[in-house]
């Protein structure tokens, strides 16, 4: 039954977007919720933080994120299914900011869990890589003088 419910819930398109930064207390709550899942032995977490980069003498004070949300969530759903098919994960949670995230704040939270270490670690790295490459999300780097440049992922 538990397994059946799990499969059902996997078919729903989950939202990953949150308005503004990811807060450390949100991350703590998310970690704490796993204490009842006692088959888990390993959690791997990736966090993206907005850097105060300097570009031609100007400083990035924030990034403003926008997304083609419907397409992003469909793609994320497909990635999620593939990753669960590839690695024996207990769970996976993904959050990405929309709107303004200031330098020093967190904009991206990937959280994978498994019984042993390798699947959580490998899945986390793979999901981070795929999200950066495949999800229609854009970052607009805002400078202190109200100019901007569009972020480019390497």
């Amino acid at each position, binding site marked *: 039954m538990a397994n059946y419910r799990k499969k059902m819930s996997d078919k729903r398109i989950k939202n990953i977007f949150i308005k503004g930064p990811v807060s450390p207390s949100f991350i703590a709550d998310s970690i704490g919720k796993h204490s009842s899942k006692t088959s888990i032995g390993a959690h791997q977490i990736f966090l993206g933080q907005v850097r105060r980069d300097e570009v031609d003498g100007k400083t990035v004070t924030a990034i403003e994120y926008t997304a083609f949300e419907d397409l992003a969530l469909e793609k994320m759903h497909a990635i999620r299914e593939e990753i669960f098919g590839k690695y024996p994960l207990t769970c996976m949670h993904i959050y*990405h900011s929309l709107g303004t995230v200031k330098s020093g704040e967190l904009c991206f939270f990937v959280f994978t869990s498994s019984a042993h270490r390798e699947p959580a670690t490998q899945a986390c790295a793979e999901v981070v890589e795929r*999200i950066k490459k495949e999800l*229609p*999300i854009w970052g*607009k780097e805002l400078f202190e003088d109200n100019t901007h440049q569009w972020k480019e*992922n390497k």
Partner: protein
Amino acid sequence: MEIDIVTFGKITEIIPNGMMSFSGLTDTDQLKATLEQRYPELAGMKYKLALNKTLVQENKPVIEGAVIAIMPPFSGG
């Protein structure tokens, strides 16, 4: 024919959102060529189209009322 154009990222600064008129168009390759003529800046950019919320991987037919998203390289994360 009227096509609903939705732009993202840097391309929002080049091409306005909203209904746009085209004539003699039947597929996405022709649409791209027309857009690049109307907005020469687009020609020098890397971008992808989505047709009615599906990423366009190869040339696809376009009909009246289609929603076309024009997307520069992604930069999430």
